[in-house]
């Protein structure tokens, strides 16, 4: 785990659709998820950016708030990835997560 970029997960909230659209067009941030419209008419989207890039997203009509350290979260999740091969033994077959139920 050597060369991961240091990234923040931020929420970018713009005062209207056109402001968000032009920010995405000009700054081209790495976005996660899809744009959401707030009840107050604002439009927002999540983005992944270095601390410097996140600061550079701020402008007239745009608020950037940090949600979490995406790199740290990603590293924690990498520790939740299986090791080896759980399905290597001949009798090891994946079981789906649903309950298998007999009809009443």
């Amino acid at each position, binding site marked *: *785990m*050597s*060369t*991961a*970029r240091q*990234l923040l*997960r931020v929420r970018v909230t713009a005062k209207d*659709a056109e402001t*968000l*659209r*032009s920010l*995405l*067009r000009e700054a*081209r941030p*790495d*976005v*996660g*998820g*899809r*744009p959401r419209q707030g009840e107050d008419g604002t*439009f927002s989207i999540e983005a*992944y950016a270095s601390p410097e890039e996140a600061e550079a997203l701020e402008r007239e009509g745009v608020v950037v708030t940090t949600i979490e350290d*995406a*790199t740290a*979260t*990603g*590293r924690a*999740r*990498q520790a*939740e*990835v*299986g*090791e080896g*091969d*759980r*399905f*290597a033994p001949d009798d*090891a*077959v*994946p*079981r*789906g*997560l*649903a*309950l*298998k*139920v*007999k*009809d009443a």
Partner: protein
Amino acid sequence: MSYLNTTEVESAVTSLATAFPSACDLIDLPEPSVEGRAGHALRIGTAPAGTHDCVVLIGGVHAREWGSCEILVHLAADLLEAGTEGAGLAYGGKTYTAAQVRNVLDNLDVVVFPLVNPDGRHYSQTVDPMWRKNRNPANSGGDPSRIGVDINRNYDFLFDFATAFDPTAGVQVSDDPGDIQVYQGPSPFSEPETRNVRWLLDAFPRTRWFVDVHSYSEDMLFVWGDDENQSLDPAKNFRNTAFDGKRGVAGDLAYAEFIPKDDADDSTVLAEQFCKGLHGVRGRAYSPMSAFHLYPTSGTSDDYAYSRHIADPHKGKILGFTIEWGKSFHPPWSEMKRIVLDVDSGLVQFCLTALA
């Protein structure tokens, strides 16, 4: 349990094929990845392949969206185990009867390709968790920061985005290999991963539904992604060069992509039923909608799948969908398990709706 590593996704698929020989076939995808990893899919169904209409489900396209592979591996395992034991399936509060499961197995071909981009998944799980593209260095000029192509911009749909779209549309794609997220590649289908998906659609000519599993935003998307939908003016379509430079602007009258009303209605019903089956598990409310929202995309799998029969009348019509599960790329596994139940229930309902 925990997230599956790249080796385990493949061995899960092959061990399911070995364990349930009467209800599925193992499919070897023709092209290895750039780093030499082989891809496998399952054709689930008790009738000989090609007897029935086919739904193709793919996942693991974007490297960092790990749970897509688990969603499809577990769905295959659920259908095969319940179907061969004469059981139904209970996903939280949503239950499918043994007869419904049997109906899917006996009357549909369900093709499941859980890991389209194995090199990317391996890199995301072991080096950079935020990695999205494949790991092809061909266009990098030796610069490690310019490695990789976004597979979900590499399909042949409005690939020449600079010509097709309005310059102010902000189309979410790039022709610069230095773009860390949405580099489209040098040409349509330049990547082995993309060609494998095309091969599947060609190999199963009775494919009528295609679902690409991604994250995140809790949405079930249907075509189109290049502009808003309309069913009134067939001339406004992706093949008509008269509308070059006009596509992709939100809320304008200059252009919206044509989809016949029947196809729009069928796509909407399937997306709604997916969301309904998902909601029954624990109450998560996913939104069914067309893919265009605020900005356009080009070269995506769902638009390509649906556009095939328009570009080539010899090909069958495929309704294309993209699931965007969850609210983050890497939920803790404890939460990811709940999302797997949500989405798999939605997919069973989707298959039942397709059959109806």
